C-alpha cells in the first residue's frame, strides 16, 4: 500500500476511536453538567475545555510526563500490566481523544440545555424510567447538536498533530498519522508526497464541514 494511504487509514482509525470514546465520555459528562447542580460545576467545565485552548505542546508535555515510563500513570500501567502508551497507537488515540473532547462536550451541553424540560417531565409522568427518558426523549431532541459536535471532533482528531507527535512519535503504520506524514515529507523535501497528503486532508475536512453545515438549525435533517 502507498505510504499516503497507510497514513490516511491510520488517521481515520485514530480519529474514529477518538470520536467513539468522546461520544460516550463527552455526552455523559455534558449531560451531567447540564442537568446536575453541584459546586465547582463551572470549574470542571473550564478544566475540561482546556485542551481546546492549550497549546498542543503543553498538552503533549503533560501527557508525556504523566503517561511516560517514569510518569505516575505510565509507571503504574507498565509495572502492573506491562502496558506502554508512549510511541503506541493507544497513545495517539488518547492524545486525539483529549484534544477533541471539548468539541463534543460543549456542543452536547448546549444541546441539552436548550431542551424544554417539559418534554422530559411529560415522559416521566407517562411512566418512562429515567434511562428510557434519556434515550427516547432527551437524546433524540439533542441529536443535532451532538452530531455536529461529534463531526467536528472527528475532524479535529483527524488533524491532531502537536500532542500526538510528542507522545506517539512518528512510526510509519503505527503512529504516523496524516498530519505527521505531511510534516515529515516537507522536512525531507518530498513535496510530491506532501501535495498528495495535504489534498487528502483538505478534502476530508471539507467534507466534514459540509456535513456539519447540514446539521445547522433550520435545515433539512440528515
Amino acid at each position, binding site marked *: 500500500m502507498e505510504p499516503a494511504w497507510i497514513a490516511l487509514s491510520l488517521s481515520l482509525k485514530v480519529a474514529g476511536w477518538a470520536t467513539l470514546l468522546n461520544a460516550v465520555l463527552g455526552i455523559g459528562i455534558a449531560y451531567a453538567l447540564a442537568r446536575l447542580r453541584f459546586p465547582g460545576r463551572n470549574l470542571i467545565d473550564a478544566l475540561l475545555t482546556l485542551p481546546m485552548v492549550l497549546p498542543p505542546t503543553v498538552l503533549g508535555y503533560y501527557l508525556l510526563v504523566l503517561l511516560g*515510563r*517514569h510518569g505516575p500513570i505510565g509507571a503504574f500501567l507498565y509495572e502492573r500490566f506491562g502496558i506502554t502508551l*508512549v*510511541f503506541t497507537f493507544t497513545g495517539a488515540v488518547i492524545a486525539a481523544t483529549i484534544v477533541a473532547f471539548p468539541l463534543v462536550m460543549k456542543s452536547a451541553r448546549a444541546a441539552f440545555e436548550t431542551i424544554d424540560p417539559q418534554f422530559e417531565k411529560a415522559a416521566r409522568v407517562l411512566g418512562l424510567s429515567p434511562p428510557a427518558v434519556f434515550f427516547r426523549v432527551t437524546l433524540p431532541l439533542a441529536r443535532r447538536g451532538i452530531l455536529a459536535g461529534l463531526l467536528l471532533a472527528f475532524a479535529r482528531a483527524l488533524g491532531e498533530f502537536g500532542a500526538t507527535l510528542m507522545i506517539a512519535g512518528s512510526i510509519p503504520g503505527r503512529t504516523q498519522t496524516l498530519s505527521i506524514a505531511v510534516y*515529515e515529507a516537507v*522536512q525531507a*523535501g518530498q513535496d510530491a508526497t506532501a501535495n498528495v497528503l495535504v489534498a487528502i486532508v483538505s478534502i476530508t475536512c471539507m467534507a466534514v464541514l459540509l456535513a456539519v453545515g447540514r446539521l445547522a438549525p433550520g435545515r433539512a435533517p440528515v
Partner: protein
Amino acid sequence: MFRRLALASLACLVAMAAPIARGAGLTVSAAASLQNAFREIAIAWEARHARDRVLLNFAASGTLLQQLDKGAPVDVFASADRETMDRAQAKKLIDAAARRDFARNVLVVAVPTASSPAITSLADLRQDAVRRVAIGDPRSVPAGRHAQAALDAAGLHDAIAPKRIVAQSVRQVLDYVARGEVDAGFVYATDAAILQDRVRVAFDVPLDEPVRYSIAPVKGTANAAGARSFIDFVTGAQGREILARHGFAQP
C-alpha cells in the same frame, strides 16, 4: 466600562505594532546539536558587535536546508555534516567560496543512566531487552543518516528496523533516552554530555568518515558583512574555544 475597554484595545494595538527585533538582525540557521555552543557564541559575538543581533534558528540540518530552499531569510547556515551542505551548494543556496568546516563530532549510542542491558556494540542492540532504539529521521537528520549507514554496514538494518523510533532531530532522540522512553538512541557525544546525569554513552559508533560540521554564508544575504564576521568568529580563536568547551573537536 466601554471607554476602559476601548483604551485597553488601543494599548494592545500599540503593543502589537512595536517592532519585534531591533537593529540589523543576523539570522543563523544551525544544526540542533549546536544549540548550546551557538547560544554562547552568539552572545560572545554580540558583545563585540553592539548594533547587530543574532537570531538563532535550530532544527535538523535537513530541515534547515528545506527552509533555505523555500526562501527563508537566513544569513548563515551551519550544518552537522558535509552532505547537507553539499546539497545546499548543489542548489546554489550558499556562497561556496566562503564555506568552511569548523568542528568535528563523534556519533555515540546513548542509554538511560539506570539502564540494565549491557550494550557495548551495535550488535548488542539486537538483544530482546533492547526494545526501542531512537534514531533521527535519516532523510533530514544527519546523525540519523550516519547511524543508519553504520547499521547498514554492520548488516543490522533488518534486525533493528522493528525497534526504530524515528525522531525529528538529534535532540529529540536525546530527550527520549533521558526520559527512559527508549532503551538506546543515536546522538552525538556533545549531546550526551549535556544530560550526563540522565544518559550515559554506551559506546562510540564506528563510522567510515568522521562527522564534520560545515558553515557558510547564504547566497544573496542582505547582511553579507555580518555573515562573514560571524563565520570568522566561529572559526577564530574564541569560537574554537567555546566549541571545544562544549566537546567539539577541531576539523
